[in-house]
């Protein structure tokens, strides 16, 4: 992929994340912070599909942004054909793995596997 397209995605995901994380924080302000982290409360939130969907989107946005950022840092740290290939593919794999793991949690809650 062209580097300019990757960086447009990088900036775009950052901007979208600012908006969605703001909503996420506002939602969390509806109850006390400690209360918010209680088991039942977390399960309830995940079962509220519009909110769980938004969390999923934040997860995707920040995984793309964060792992691309990591790719950039690693490419600037060391150079070499094999190394750079490994970094690029490694970051994509890690990104997919993290998104998969987070998505799995939401699906497990909503299919009653908890």
């Amino acid at each position, binding site marked *: 992929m062209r580097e300019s397209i990757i960086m447009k995605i990088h900036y775009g995901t950052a901007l979208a994340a600012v908006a969605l994380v703001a909503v996420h924080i506002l939602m969390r302000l509806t109850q006390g912070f400690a209360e918010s982290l209680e088991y039942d409360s977390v399960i309830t939130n995940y079962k509220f599909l519009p909110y769980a969907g938004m969390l999923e989107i934040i997860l995707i946005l920040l995984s793309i942004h964060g792992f691309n950022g990591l790719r950039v840092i690693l*490419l*600037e*740290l060391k150079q070499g054909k094999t190394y*750079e290939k490994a970094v690029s593919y490694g970051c994509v794999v890690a990104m997919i793995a993290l998104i998969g793991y987070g998505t799995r949690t939401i699906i497990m809650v909503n299919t009653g596997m908890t």
Partner: protein
Amino acid sequence: MAQTPSLAEESGSTPFSSSQSITLRIARYNPQHDSAKSFMEFQVPYEKWTTVLEAILEVKKHFDHSVAVRYSCRQATCGSCGMIINGKPRLACFTKISELNSNVITVEPMNNFPIIRDLAVKFERLFDTHHKIKPYLIRDDTEITTNTKEFLQSPEELEQYIQFSNCIKCGLCNSACPTMATDSSFVGPQALAQAYRYVADSRDKGKDNRLKIIDDSHGIWRCHFAGSCSQVCPKGVDPAMGIQLLRGYMLGFRS
């Protein structure tokens, strides 16, 4: 029997007849047999107008002629004498001792360039990256053929790029750039500023070509807005601004 004259006698000139003097610390390093950089200190007299380059040449003339330094024009035009002076990349011929406000002046080779010896560094990477962005007007026709006019430009069109054409390829910006320090494939602020200089020239038709060249995993996107290039440029080129203007084309804010 005639005696071999010492260097000082041979040159026929005497050190500056000034009452003021500074300690000039010169980095010495020969990659062929030194394992690390060391410093030699010299007491050098100076006048209000004495430049760091003149002080180094005094040292070569009267104390140690083996100090390696590159220079030519002595007037901030050839771009040869870039070095780190008291921690900052500067042109030695364009930096007066009196403006440094210090009794000790330390000169070192530029960062992010391989050292040939002492203060002289290799410029191959800078020349390569400069060449890579095609630093010339690209278009099919030419003004050299007969019966054609020269390519006219309005003052406004000239204004778009003229500041960037002041670059003397001294490399101070590349020496100051933090990305250059770790990314050995980074194209660097000097070449990026020149890419802008030609892209913004109304006579040039090579914009797409050049933007493609710098749109690489070690291209323009590896600039992280540190701005140190523009801080050290002795010619007011402002590479950091050129980079942001180029990004404007690539992000669709400019056409």
